Every structure is written in structure tokens, then in C-alpha cells.
């Protein structure tokens, strides 16, 4: 009989009409976001050793970082993500050996102005003196490494620029 299918369809629609609502009124109510959600990034600055693995793993060259040598260690001075180019693939988070980079559940990264889009996770001045060095110096006294303390500061300032350049060069290779 012609029209049987239409009646059946209407019955389904009628049933669905009384079914509980699945949608939520968004800004007031929100669905729960799962643990693994790929949202905004956070960087655990204390864990990060400024190795640059994450920047190299990124397919779209989103991450740029700068570092300075302070004492024996690399000191992260700048960690910026051009989030507008991010694919949210998670390769950077996966590549980090130190478990320093994480996703959060925050998906709202809207900005009014273009210049505010890049996500600056770290921006700080490198300390002139190595911070933890004196404490460690107590342990390994015999090593006369810390002797030329004063000239080191000059050295710090100079290699910083080539370091940044080599970083950029390494980046260009990926393009």
C-alpha cells in the first residue's frame, strides 16, 4: 500500500518527539570532556630541559623555543606555540621524554586579536648566575669548573644568539 512507509516514518518521528533531549544549552551547560582530549597546551617548566624534541616532532612547525646556557644547563627562556597552525595531533606531547608538555581539557582558545593567538607558555629572562649550581658545588668540590664565574656571563650572552640561529636553521630544514 502506498503511504505505509510514510506512516511508519511518522510513527518513528512521533516516538522520537517524546524521547529525552540529547542536546544541552551550550554555554550554561557543557558535556564532559574526556581525559585524553586534545585541547590547550600546558608546559611543566620545571621538567622541561629545553631539548627541542617537541619542536622537531611537530609537522607544522608550531613550536618555537629559545634557550640560553646558564652554567652547565640549558635554560628555557622562551616557549611559544603558533597555535593557529596546530593540527592537534599530539605528536609533540608524545615525543617529550620528560613528560613536560601536556594537553588540557580547555578547548576555548578564541582571541579577539590576531596578535594574541600565539600561545606563550614560557617567556622569562635567563638568570645571570646559575641557580642550583652553588648547591651542587658543595657536593663536587674538587671540580674546578665553576672557577671562571665572571667571564662566563659574557660567554652566556654571546652563544645565546648562535644557539637561537642554529635552532632556526634546524627548523628550516624541516620546511
Amino acid at each position, binding site marked *: 500500500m502506498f503511504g505505509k512507509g510514510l506512516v511508519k516514518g511518522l510513527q518513528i518521528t512521533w516516538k522520537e518527539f517524546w524521547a529525552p533531549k540529547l542536546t544541552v544549552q551550550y554555554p550554561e551547560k557543557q558535556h564532559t570532556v574526556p*581525559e585524553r582530549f586534545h585541547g590547550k597546551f600546558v608546559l611543566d617548566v620545571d621538567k622541561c630541559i629545553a631539548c627541542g624534541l617537541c619542536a622537531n616532532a611537530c*609537522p607544522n612547525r608550531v613550536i618555537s623555543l629559545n634557550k640560553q646556557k646558564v652554567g652547565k644547563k640549558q635554560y628555557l627562556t622562551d616557549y611559544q606555540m603558533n597555535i593557529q597552525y596546530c593540527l592537534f595531533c599530539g605528536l609533540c606531547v608524545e615525543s617529550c621524554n620528560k613528560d613536560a608538555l601536556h594537553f588540557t581539557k580547555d578547548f576555548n582558545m578564541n582571541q579577539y586579536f590576531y596578535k594574541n593567538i600565539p600561545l606563550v607558555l614560557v617567556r622569562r629572562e635567563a638568570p645571570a648566575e646559575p641557580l642550583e649550581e652553588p648547591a651542587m658545588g658543595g657536593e663536587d668540590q674538587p671540580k674546578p669548573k665553576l672557577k671562571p664565574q665572571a667571564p662566563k656571563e659574557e660567554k652566556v650572552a654571546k652563544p645565546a644568539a648562535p644557539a637561537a640561529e642554529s635552532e632556526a636553521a634546524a627548523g628550516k630544514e624541516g*620546511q
Partner: protein
Amino acid sequence: MLRTQEYVLNFGPQHPSTHGVFQILLTLDGERIVKAEPICGYLHRGIEKLAEARTYTQVIPYTDRMDYLAAMLQNVGYVQAVEKLMGIEVPERAEYLRVISGELSRLTSHVLATGVYALDVGGFTGFLLCFREREKMMDLLEELTGSRMTLSYARIGGVADDVTEGWLDKLNKLMDEMPGYIEEYNGLITGNEIFQARTKFVGQLTPETCINYSLSGPVLRASGVNYDLRKAMPYGIYDRFDFEVPLGTNGDCFDRFYCRVLEMEQSVRIIKQAIEQIKEVDGPVMAKVPKVLKPPKGEVYHEIESSKGIIGYYIVSDGTNKPYRLHVRRPSFINLGYLDEMLRGYLIADVVAILGSIDIVLGEVDC
């Protein structure tokens, strides 16, 4: 002398029924189509070229962006090609997770195709009901991979992460409910007489044409050609599952649509079997692969059955950590090849019905 004149109608690129940015120049005689000239490329991003400047792992997120409706299948096709090139053995658990997430991706794609097709021919309710289930599946995929559509879940040598606690049970529950939902789609869309009048015996394809034009996927099978790579050349672990390949008889729009509905049932079957079997398989989800992947010099071609048809990856390696050349055989693009002849002689109103039944996704057409 009075005479009729042909005129050209622009269909798209900003037309909701082209499923993206796609243009067809229709030459019309009255309401009948004399010639149709598909123009694609509005969404071209040069993914094949981009891949040449990316390492093998870094290409994975770009494959998502081709057929973003079934991203996992694109991922799997690519990583399996690289694995074939390098001879990497994938852990069994990873294989199962690939099948589960891949079939779930296929389901999301087919559910969307079903719903959107209903919308194309004028049924809004069917569209909404299909999106209801798609939402549930995408929530599950989000829980597993962290993303809803661009999953980037497969890795060369395995998958990114194991399932979370209780995820398989949630999936099993949804798969139990799925036949009921498919029943609803059939009641609401398939059984609808108006829908059938719009789609039956419209845009018919003979098996010979399909084969000659290298069409694949539901478009091919709707014409009665039994060719599904999962059965014909089982890749991964597809030979362990018991499923059927649904076939059509007329090769018209209705058969292409209904083939997808039937394939959904088979995907549900595969997922349920995989859930049963994965419980016995423990172990890593990632093979031991070096951090820097340098496949040997050579080339490889690997194809799998995606939701739209056969997707093939051709990779040429020059021994460095980046592919020398990547080419993708995209089913949506190739299935579009016959559009001109398919549309000839039909009315304007059938254009949307025929185009919708091929189920293209423009990310893949333009690549």
C-alpha cells in the same frame, strides 16, 4: 526563427548539497542536463607535496585531513604502507584496535552519508536522527584518541595509545543498540515512498561501467560487483572476522544508499567480534621501531577499503627520513570521474540525488 537555447547553470561552489566546495557547470536544455563539467580543486592543500617535507611519522596527521569523516581508515592505509616498506611487524593488540577504531570510523562516515543523503533529497528528520548516533560514536572516538574527527590515532608500528578503562564496554553497548537505530533509519528513510521515488532507477551504473571507470566502494558494490578489499585481499587481520559484503542489483542511487546502510550492519558485526577477540589479546600496542624512521630505498603501494572506496598509498623512498614522493589514490576523486555521463539526461532536481549517492568528501577529492 524561434528556437530553444542551452544555458549554463553554476552549481556550487557555495552550494550546501555539494558537501563542500565543489562546482559543477551544468549545461541545460530546459531542465534536462546536457553536459556536466565537474570543477574541483577549491580545497586543494597539496598534501602530497607537503608530505615530501615531513618525516614519515609527521605525514600521519595530514592523512586525516583527506577523508576527515573516516580519518582512522586514512591513517591505517598510510601506516600500513610504510610498515610494508620497512617490514615492521605490528603487535596483535594494535591490529585489533586499528580494526575497531577503523570500523567505528567507517560507521561514522556511513551514518553521516545516510543522514546527509536524506537531507539532500529533502528529509530533515532522518538527517537529525543519524547525527544522534554519529555524536555517540564520535564521543567514543574522542575518548579513545583525544580528537573527534582528525584522529591521528595510528602510528607506524601500532597505535598511539591503548583503550581506556571501560571503553570497550561502552562501545559494546552502543553496538548492541545500533541494529535498533539502523531499523529506525530504514523506517524513516529507506522505506519512505517519496524517497524511493526520488532515488530508484536514477543514475544507474552498469557493472561494466563501474569496472571500466575504476569506481570502488559502495558505488561499485551497488551495481552488483562483489569486490571488497577486506574480503578480496584481506589486509591486517580482516581474515579473522566473519562478515558479508552487501551488494545491490540495480546500481541506482537507492542501491548505493542502501548498500551503506547494510554495510553499517556488517561493521557492527566486525566490531562486536573484535571486542570479543581483543579481550584475549594482551600486550603492547606499539612495535619497537626506531625513533628516526629511515625506510630502505624503494617504493611501495598499499591499498585498503576505506568508507568511500579503495584508498591506496604509493610511497617512494630514497632512503632518507622523508618520503621522496607520496601519491594517494583517493576513492572520492575517482568515483567522481563518471559524474558527467551519470548526470546526462536527468533533471536538475536529480543532480543532488546523484551527487549525494556517490558520497564524496571534498577533502579527499582535492587532497
